[in-house]
Each structure stands twice: as structure tokens, then as C-alpha cells.
């Protein structure tokens, strides 16, 4: 059982701060690192994996620093997002080379076992240059698993996978987490994180925005103010009635309809239909306005 610990970790490139004073602990089991693109997830993962030194703070794996310490790779496996895979090798050769470089006692059987896990089938004897994105991804996963690491770091592992591969991968990570391994994966999609991990670390603009159980994070996300665009038979009258509702914090009359800001998603959506029916106003359109993931995350940061 190995714990990964980041204490007051910052990383900057020149004047740009990529990661800002992050303190977090990753325990055995599956942990999701959630955040929009460009939030600093990859930088955090690279620092944990010892491929990047922190500008400030400490990154410890099992109590030992990860940077300039190749020994950590005996217990750590890394699947980066889009690193190249040598296309002139077959998956079998590639994973076998990995096993040899790990100086495993029986590299052949280790490579076979790792490739069995990712189910590449007959393709293992084909050159990697002929593979699809998902197959390359699985090849990299096999290479990262070849030494049976206690800590596994994955950067956006579900990118480029089809739904079946995605399920398979989730199942694999689930099982490994249940075995007591420490698994940290990054994603910019909440649903992926939700399905896979109990613990979520949310990172936005280089800062740790939220940390803990996914249900808690989920509640924060669904309970945030929502903006709806509503069209009805009588916008002005609907506006007056809606202002009387506790769940509504602002209403704006717009040529396109009513812009309604609701404090609470659930209460408002239930109240809306009741109120409209009561005042005989016909609703012709209720549209949640498009909210980017970035908006959601920046709301979380403000909390």
C-alpha cells in the first residue's frame, strides 16, 4: 500500500504558473484528477511520475522524492497522454523491451501477462505503426503494467477509446484499485471520474479547487446557479410570477425570451411547471443555457 503525497507543490515555466501551491494525498484505490483542459493536470501527473521537478514544495511516493530518483519506477507505472510509441516495433516487442529494461526475472511471461490484460489479441505481432489510437493506448497501458506496479498514473486514459474499450479499461482500473493499488488518472469529463472513483481531486487554473468524495463534488456542481432561457405565451407575466419564487434569483426580459437565473436546479425546474399551469401561461421553450465545463469549474473555485 503506497501513498502519494504532494505538499505545497508549485511549478512555473518562466513567468507562467502552471501549478500553484497544491497539497494533496493520493491513497490506495482509484482517485480521479478532474479539471478542464489546461488546468495543470498533466503537470501534476508528470511531477508525481518524476518527469518534472517541482519549482517549490515536495512530491513524495512512499515517502521518497520522485524527481531524480529512477528507483521509484520499480513501483510506479505511467501512461502519458500522447507520448509516441516506437512504430517500428510490434506491441509484443515493445512490452518485452519494457520488461527487460525493468530487469524482471522472467520478461517473457511478464510481457505476456501484461498484454493479456489489455486484450490486444493477434495484433500484438503487428507493427505498432499500423495500430489505431485506442490500440496504441492499450499498448502503452500494457507497457506500464508489465512490472506489476503498486502505483499507476494515467493521463487521460479514455481519450480515443471506443465505448467498449472504455468499459474494459474502467473495469481494469476498478479491479486494480480494489487490489490495494494506488491509481491516479486524469480526465476533463466528470462522468468518467464519477463512474470510476470514489475520491476526486478537482484542479482548476493550477490550483486545487475541491477535493474529496465525488458525491460531495457532484452536489456542488448540480446545486450551482443555473441560467435558463424560457419562452412562453406571456413572458412579462411569467417574469413577475417567477420573481416570487425563492429558487429564482434574477429574471431578465429579453427579445428572445426570459433569462432566468435559478439558485437551485431541482427546486426551480419543479416549481416552473406548477407556476405556469397555475397562471395559465403556456411554456413554449425551456432551454438550459449552454454552460461550458470551464464555467462549472470556475464556480467550484469560488466556493
Amino acid at each position, binding site marked *: 500500500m503506497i501513498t502519494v503525497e504532494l505538499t505545497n507543490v508549485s511549478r512555473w515555466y518562466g513567468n507562467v504558473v502552471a501549478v500553484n501551491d497544491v497539497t494533496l494525498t493520493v491513497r490506495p484505490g482509484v482517485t480521479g484528477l478532474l479539471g478542464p483542459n489546461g488546468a495543470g*493536470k498533466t503537470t501534476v501527473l508528470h511531477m508525481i511520475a518524476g518527469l518534472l521537478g517541482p519549482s517549490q514544495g515536495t512530491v513524495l511516493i512512499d515517502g521518497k522524492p520522485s524527481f531524480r530518483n*529512477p528507483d521509484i519506477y520499480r513501483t510506479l507505472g505511467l501512461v502519458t497522454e500522447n507520448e509516441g510509441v*516506437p512504430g*517500428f516495433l510490434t506491441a509484443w516487442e515493445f512490452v518485452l523491451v519494457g520488461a*527487460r529494461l525493468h530487469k524482471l526475472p522472467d520478461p517473457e511471461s511478464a510481457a505476456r501477462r501484461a498484454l493479456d490484460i489489455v486484450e490486444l489479441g493477434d495484433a500484438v505481432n503487428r507493427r505498432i505503426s499500423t495500430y489505431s489510437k485506442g490500440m496504441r493506448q492499450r499498448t502503452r497501458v500494457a507497457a506500464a503494467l508489465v512490472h506489476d506496479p503498486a502505483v499507476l498514473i494515467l493521463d487521460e486514459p479514455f481519450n480515443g477509446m471506443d465505448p467498449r474499450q472504455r468499459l474494459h479499461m474502467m473495469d481494469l482500473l476498478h479491479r486494480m484499485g480494489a487490489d490495494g493499488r494506488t491509481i491516479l488518472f486524469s480526465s476533463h469529463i466528470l462522468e468518467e471520474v464519477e463512474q470510476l472513483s470514489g475520491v476526486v481531486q478537482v484542479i482548476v487554473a493550477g490550483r486545487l479547487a475541491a477535493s474529496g468524495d465525488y458525491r460531495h463534488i457532484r452536489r456542488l456542481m448540480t446545486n450551482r446557479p443555473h441560467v435558463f432561457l424560457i419562452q412562453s405565451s406571456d413572458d412579462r407575466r411569467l417574469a413577475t410570477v417567477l420573481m416570487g419564487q425563492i429558487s429564482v434569483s434574477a429574471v431578465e426580459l429579453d427579445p428572445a425570451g426570459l433569462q432566468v437565473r435559478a439558485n437551485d436546479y431541482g427546486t426551480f425546474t419543479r416549481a416552473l411547471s406548477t407556476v405556469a399551469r397555475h397562471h395559465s401561461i403556456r411554456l413554449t421553450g425551456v432551454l438550459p443555457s449552454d454552460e461550458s465545463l470551464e464555467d462549472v469549474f470556475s464556480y467550484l473555485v469560488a466556493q
Partner: protein
Amino acid sequence: MNTTIAALTFRALLGRRRVLLLLPMPALLIGLTLIAQSSPAFIDEWGPVVFAQLGLGVILPLTALVVGSSVLGLEIEDGTITHLLTKPLPRHEIIVAKLAVAWSVTTVATAVPLTAAALITGSAALAAGLVLGAAVGALAYTAGFLALSLLTRRPVAVGLVYIILWENLLTTFVAGTRILSIREQAVALSDSVAGTTWLPTHLNPVAALILAAVLTAIGILGATARLRSYSLSGETS
């Protein structure tokens, strides 16, 4: 030595189109020797040009530059270096394996045509001298260019500046710069065995050997230190 890394590097290097860059130069060297040998010109006139200036002065450093900057540089370029870095290997083990490949490929690619050219003139001693010079020079050059591929994003450009400005220009005007010229060291060592007048040298062979060893050591140590604290750059999302 880590034979897994060496074998992988051989495959990666010889599978690249870049390796074809190594072919025209030896052909040129042998072709020129054949033409010169069959012409009425004296070997004292063209010998220094072909063996010292072209062979050890151009073909050796350029071959070493292409090979030395590729053995690790290509992996840095295409990002596959991550696979190598995330293994529990002492970093000097990686550098030594890479250097062994770069050195052997460069030595073979230069010593074979130089030997052929020397044998055309009928001198086995010249051939032996050139092989020694090429082998020692290749080691110092590739160690330096391997280190350069870790120190700069443009190892080929920096390497060319060293070859053209330092070794070919500066050394003709400022005598003191010769001690840091690998070309001078290679010529001095070749000359000590060949015993001809076609390899004009300014260095004592023992000094040349020591200087080449020092430059090689600096290259290996520099590359190892750099790889030890190598940071993945580029994508920062």
C-alpha cells in the same frame, strides 16, 4: 552495458531515412581517391586534401554529428524517451549504451571508406592510422554530440557551428584553439601510425589521446547529469 537499449537504438537508427545521409560522403571519398590515383598528380599534393581535410576533417565529424545527435535526440523529438526514463535504470547506463551504438556506427561508417581509400594508394600503415584516428575521433565527437542533443533543442546546428567555426576556421588563425579540436586529435593520432606526410599535425599523439579522453569524459558526464534531471517539456495542460 545495457544490450536491450543498444539493440533498440540500433534498430531505431538504421530504420531511419536519416541514416541514408551517411552514404554519399564515403562514396565521394573513395571516388576522389580513385580519380586522383589515376591522374598524373602527385599524392603529396592531393593526399592531405583527401585524407586529412575531407576524410578526418569533414566526413568524420559530419557522420558523428548525424549519428551522435540521433541516438537519443530522435527519442526526445518524438517523445518516446518517456518509456526509457520511466524505467529504474541508472542514467549513466542509458548514456553508455547510446554512446556505444553511436560510436560503433560512426566508426564503421568512416573507418571502412577511409581504409578503402588508403588501400587504393597502397599504404597499409596509412589505413591503420586512419582507422585509429577515426575510432578515437568518433568516440570524442559522438560523446560531445550526444551531450549536445540533451543540452539544446538544436544539436545539429550547434554541432555544425563547432565543426565549421571552431575546427575549420578558428584553428587556422588561433593556434591555442587546436587543443579543443577533435579533428586535430584524430589527425595527430592517425599520423603517428601512418608515418606519411599527408596528415599535417600540430599535436603530439600522447597529448591528442589524453585530450580526446578528457573531451569524451566531459561528454559522458555532461550527458548523464543532464539526463538525470531531465524534465519533460512541451505540453503543459
